[in-house]
């Protein structure tokens, strides 16, 4: 598969997890600007428009139901 190399990335992430960030160090990570999908409904709606203008879908963090949109 062309994208096989991407599949090994999770293992790098997991190994890096050994350097644990303690709960009292995470204050900055709770900031909304450090969230991937702080407004998930809005993100999903925008993704929907793109899905119906392009030929790809998936691996974006959003889920959606079916639509007869052209």
């Amino acid at each position, binding site marked *: 598969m062309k994208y096989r190399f*991407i599949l090994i990335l999770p293992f790098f*992430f997991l190994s890096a*997890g050994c350097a644990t960030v303690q709960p009292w160090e*995470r204050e*900055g990570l709770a900031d909304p600007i450090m969230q991937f*999908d702080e407004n998930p409904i809005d993100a999903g709606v925008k993704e929907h428009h793109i899905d*119906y203008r392009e030929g*790809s879908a998936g691996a*974006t963090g*959003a889920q959606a139901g079916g639509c007869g949109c052209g």
Partner: protein
Amino acid sequence: MMAWGSPGNAQELPADEITINISSYFDNFDVQIVYPNLALTRKVSETTSLTGRYLVDVVSAASIRGEAPETGSDEVRRIVNVVTSASGRSRTVVSQSGGRIAAPPPTGPDDLRHEFGVGMAQLVGGGTVSVNGIYGVENDYASTTLAGTFSRAFAKKNTTIQLGLVRSWDEVFPATKNWRRDKNVATYSASLTQILSTLLVAQFLASYSNNTGHLSDDYQLVPIARGDTTAVLDPLHPTTRSRKAVGTRFKIRVDRHSSLQLGYRYYNDSWEVDSHTFSFNYQRHLSPIAKVSLGLRTYLQGRAFFFQPEYTEEQTFMTADIKLDSSFSNELQLGLSLHGREDHYFPLLKNEDVEYNVGLNIYQRHTDTPYWFNGKQDLRAGYFNIGVRYKF
């Protein structure tokens, strides 16, 4: 279409809130969509939260209304079959020489779609399980979707794994046909989010989708040019499509007030469409109540194996769906959020539980082949959203 993101962090229920949005889409292919939507989330116990959603799509589109483009050129060698659906108007065929057809004046939206969703999130054994049901209906399509996710955090919540399954049972019944056909979609997804440091978070996402049944868009007819004559046939898509995507995103804290997000996704499917998506997003606190974001997205796509710019004879598989052509697109994303404060002088912001959001996306897509309906290769679109979130 109802879309939702992941159900919040593992071991946390979504906040009680009501969200109201009015969104609008418009493009130079003469499509305009307005869709107000409403969502309500409420905890019913310490471990359970319920969500209800409603959305309506109000669609106006020339391709539906029956207005053919000006095609006075002798080089036009296709028959434009203009069909209308929402109002049940009769099918119209434009002659080979082209020209504008005067359609009956529109008496309302060309298409109206309603979508209802209910969901539940439950804390279970250190993780969170959510289940959502969606029903969408319009004049030529109905969709029933069930979606479930499970997320759990590990390693002092530095690592979060989420698994998801979406199953859709759709029914297609174009206004120009006298049949009803099924379309089924099953999508499996997984994500791993890893806190790498106090300044860096990484996420890996993967999805696999299996689509079966009627996968053609019957409003997009395929012209077959045979010498001096042109026939128009129904599209013929394969009845199966397996779609795979993997992606990664990084969130980087730049300084106390700003962050940067970088993303990449690779997509591939059994129709031989493959694509690369690159994304960039910068967010910054302008003040204790205001936050802005600037994003850029670039997309590159290869063509489906059965897509041809022009057909000279009937093929086993044929399509006029421009989404399956080679293309590239760019999108600029702008956003502004205002979060209320108890001591603010402005009445609408005098509440720390309220947040206002405004967004504008400008999108441009170029395809190798002109769109059959209007002869254009370049789509330019805008998406505008204004909304309010109130936590209670």
